[in-house]
C-alpha cells in the first residue's frame, strides 16, 4: 500500500529525510516516532504528494508520488499538525468544501456520518471559531475521514483531546484498521503508538529501526532481573557486585533490587543459589522488560541529533 525506496528530501543544504525505505501493508497502522525535527512531518508531506522528493521514490496505493501526485491526493486523507479549519464557517460548511473537492458521493449523508462519529453533529451549525481546541481537532479528524480514503496520515490525532474523546478517536482508528485502511500515525505519545500501531518505525532523518512493539522491546532487552526479597542487607549490593556474572546491581526500594546479568538464562539459577547461600529469602524474580520509552530513548540517543546537524523542525 505504501512503499518508499531511498526516499529523501533536502531543504537547501539541510537534509530533512534521507534514504528512507518503508513498506506498509494494507490494513497496517504504522506508528511513526521520532524526536522533533526527525523528519516525520516531511515524510508525511512526501507521502501525501504535498512536496516532491529530492531523492528516491515512493508509491502510495499504487501511485507514484512524483508521476501521479493527483491520484495520490485522491486516495489519501490527512490530519495535519494544526487543524487548519475555516473559523467563520460551520462544521458542515467546512466538511462540505472537502466533500466537493474529493467528489464524495451522497455528500450530506457522508458529512452527517463523520460528524456523528466524532460527536459534533449537535454542534454542526455553529461557526468553528466558537469551538474548543479539542472540538477543532475532532472536526479536522472528521475532515480527513470524509472521503473514506484507503490511506490516512494522522499527525497527533489525540492532541488536545480529553480522555473520553481521545478514547473515541482511538476506537475509530481501530475500526478503520479493521476495515482495511492503511494508517500512518505520527505521535510523541508512546503509549498511544504502542496501543494503536501494528508496527512502529523510529525515524531520525532516516529509518533507525522498525518492528512490532514486542520486537522492539525484545531487541532492547537489557538482561536485567528484578528480585523481591524479604529484606535487603546493607552490604548485599557490594556482595553481589563481586560475582563474575553480575554487571551491576541497583536497589529499587526496601524490598526490591535489579541485577544486570551477562547471560540471564545461565546466570539466574546461580544468582538465586548465591542469595540463598547468603541467607537471603527470595520471594520473587522476574525479567525486567524494557518499556517502549526505554527502547525509543536508547535508539534515539544512539543516533546523532538532527538539531546537531542544523536540521529544521520538519
Amino acid at each position, binding site marked *: 500500500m505504501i512503499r518508499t525506496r531511498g526516499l529523501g528530501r533536502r*531543504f*537547501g543544504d*539541510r537534509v*530533512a529525510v534521507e534514504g528512507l525505505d518503508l513498506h506498509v501493508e494494507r490494513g497496517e497502522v504504522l506508528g511513526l516516532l521520532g524526536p522533533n525535527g526527525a523528519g516525520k512531518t*516531511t515524510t508525511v*508531506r512526501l507521502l*501525501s*504528494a*504535498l*512536496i*516532491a522528493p529530492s531523492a528516491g521514490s515512493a508509491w502510495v496505493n499504487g501511485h507514484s508520488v512524483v508521476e501521479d501526485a*493527483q491520484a495520490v*491526493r*485522491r486516495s*489519501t486523507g*490527512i490530519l*495535519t499538525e*494544526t*487543524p*487548519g*479549519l*475555516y*473559523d*467563520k*464557517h460551520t462544521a458542515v*460548511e467546512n466538511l*462540505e*468544501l*472537502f466533500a*466537493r*473537492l*474529493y*467528489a464524495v458521493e451522497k455528500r450530506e449523508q457522508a458529512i452527517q456520518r463523520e460528524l456523528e462519529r466524532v460527536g459534533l453533529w449537535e454542534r454542526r451549525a455553529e*461557526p468553528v471559531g466558537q469551538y474548543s481546541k479539542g472540538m477543532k481537532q475532532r472536526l*479536522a479528524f472528521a*475532515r*480527513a475521514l470524509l472521503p473514506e480514503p484507503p490511506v490516512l496520515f494522522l499527525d497527533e490525532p489525540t492532541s488536545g483531546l480529553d480522555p473520553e474523546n481521545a478514547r473515541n478517536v482511538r476506537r475509530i482508528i481501530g475500526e478503520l484498521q479493521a476495515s482495511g485502511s492503511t494508517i500512518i500515525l505520527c505521535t510523541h505519545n508512546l503509549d498511544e503508538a504502542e496501543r494503536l500501531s501494528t508496527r512502529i518505525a523510529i525515524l531520525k532523518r532516516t529509518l533507525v529501526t522498525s518492528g512490532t512493539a514486542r520486537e522492539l522491546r525484545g531487541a532492547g532487552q537489557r538482561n536485567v532481573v528484578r528480585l523481591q526479597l524479604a529484606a535487603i542487607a546493607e552490604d548485599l549490593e557490594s556482595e553481589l557486585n563481586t560475582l563474575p556474572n553480575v554487571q551491576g546491581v541497583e536497589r529499587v526500594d526496601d524490598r526490591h533490587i535489579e541485577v544486570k546479568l551477562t547471560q540471564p538464562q545461565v546466570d539466574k539459577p546461580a544468582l538465586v543459589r548465591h542469595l540463598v547461600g547468603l541467607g537471603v529469602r527470595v520471594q520473587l524474580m522476574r525479567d525486567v522488560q524494557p518499556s517502549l520509552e526505554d527502547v525509543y530513548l536508547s535508539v534515539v540517543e544512539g543516533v546523532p541529533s538532527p538539531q546537531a546537524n542544523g536540521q*529544521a*523542525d*520538519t
Partner: protein
Amino acid sequence: MSYERVAAIVRHEWLGLRRNRQVLGGLAVLPILLTLFVVGFSAWGSNANPGSMNNGGSTPSELMGAPVTVQLVVQLNEMFEFFFLVMPASYPLIIAATSIVQEKKAKSLEPLLASPITTTELLVGKSVAAVLPSLVMCWGGVALCAAGLYFLAPPLVLAFFIRPAWVVAMSLLTPLLASLAGLLGVSVSSRATDEKAAGLWATLLMTVVFLLPCGLLISGRLLSLWALLGGALSVAALNWLVLRVAVRVFQREEILTRGANT
C-alpha cells in the same frame, strides 16, 4: 480543470464573504451612491430651467439642440459610467489579494493543497469568488439606473446611458477587467507573507488595471464597437497570461515548508 472543484471554492468563499457584513457593506456603498447620483441628477436636470449654456465643440451631434441641462446630465452620467466600469476591477483585487494570505495565516492551506485540487482550479476559484460579488452589485446598479432613467428622465438621457458601446463595455470589458484584477490579486496573495504586504501590492497593481479604462475615458465617447471588442480581446489574452504566471509563481512547496527553510 474540474469546474466542480472551482465551483466548490467559489461557493465556500462566498459563504465566508456573506458573513462579513463590513466587506459586503463596503461593496454595496459605491453602486448605491452611483445609482442615486445618476437617477437623481438626471431627474433634476431634466426638470430644471435650461439656463444659458453654450454648445461647445465637444458636444456630440446627437445632443445638439437638446436643452443644456440634459446635455449636462448626459456628460455627468458618462463620468459615473466610468466608475461603474472600473469599480468591479478594484474590489476583486483587494479581496483576492488577501484570500490566500489569510489561508496561510490560518494554516488551512495544507489540507486544501493535500486535496485533489490543482493550483489552476484553486486560483481560478479564488479569483472568480472575488469577482462575482462586485460584478453583480455593479450590474445591479446599472440596471437600477436604467430603470430610474426610464421613468424619470427624457428618452435621450436613457438612450445615451444604454448606448451599444457602453453595453458592450459593461457586459464584456468590465468582467474581463474584474477577472484580471482577481487573478492579479491571487498572484499577489500567493507570494505575500502578510495581509499588509498583499494590500500594498494590490494597490500598486490597481493603478495598472485602471490604465485601460482610463484610456477608454480619454478617448471618450468616440469609442467604436470594434475598438471595444479589440480591447476586450486584449484583456482576455492578458487574463490567460496572468493565470499562467500566477500558477507558475504559486509555489506549493515553498508555502508549506517556509518554516523548514528558515
